[in-house]
């Protein structure tokens, strides 16, 4: 049987991948702040920022939390409550008229 640390090393990406992900996260954050300050993006501000945020979220979860490389069971245990939280949030916003549909 191989050493536990070897298992971990084989499952996880290398330093180069971690640095590349950090660079992408940094660039996306700059783009987010840029989009916030440029008036031309005002009509698409919310969808653009939510998309960029979702990309950052996915990159950290998949590569830094190793969900892309770990057991699918971990993916299920994380994704189901995440979707439930998202669904509850959207339902609450509908209920409280946040989308302007109450009246």
């Amino acid at each position, binding site marked *: 049987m191989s*050493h536990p640390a070897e298992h971990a090393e084989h499952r996880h990406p290398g330093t180069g991948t971690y640095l590349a992900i950090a660079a992408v996260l940094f660039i996306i954050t700059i783009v987010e702040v840029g989009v916030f300050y440029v008036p031309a993006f005002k009509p698409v501000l919310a969808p653009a920022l939510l998309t960029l945020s979702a990309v950052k979220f996915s990159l*950290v979860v998949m590569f830094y939390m190793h969900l892309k490389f770990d057991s699918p069971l971990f993916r299920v245990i994380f994704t189901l409550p995440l979707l439930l939280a998202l669904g509850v949030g959207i339902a609450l916003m509908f209920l409280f008229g946040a989308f302007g549909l109450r009246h």
Partner: protein
Amino acid sequence: MTHAAAPASGHYTSTGLDNKKLAFWAFIGSECLLFGSLISTYLVYKGHSVRGPTPHEILNIPVTSVSTFDLLMSSLAMVLALAAVSRGDKIWARVWLGMTALLGLVFLSFQFYEFSSFVREGLTIKTNLFGSTFFTLTGTHGAHVAVGVLWLLTLLVRSFQGKLGPEKALNVEIAGLYWHFVDVVWIVIFTVVYLIQ
């Protein structure tokens, strides 16, 4: 039933996965619901404050952008710490664990600066709906960061005691899962609270 496999810890389990890691993912799932409810509450009450200060009057985007970058880089330091512990590199494990904790402390300092400047400008948790939901959400996140910093410092002390070898990599990985989760929650908060005003 399929054959049980040995997880990284060496213990045999029916899932073939380490029970500690499985339980911690379940905990993170429950944390999704906690932060989901806090973020939803913020969004539901957004724009319903009858008096100021309002988000666009008080939120400091340049400062928060720097603290967001700080937290993102702490996640990089955390994965590098895990990689160093896994390969038995004690020196770099200490460097990256210490760096992660330090970046966490810097983030908390930014938050302390932000909170104290808001209070000076007249926004407290009791001022209006924005104040109540904002301080509850970001304060709960800040408390999670503080717990993470203490956890990282504990690992750093264990490393200096010579008790954080490759066989303990799973403990560092679980601490890392917590730290990265705190980071992804901030990614959402930064967008939803600060940028989409």
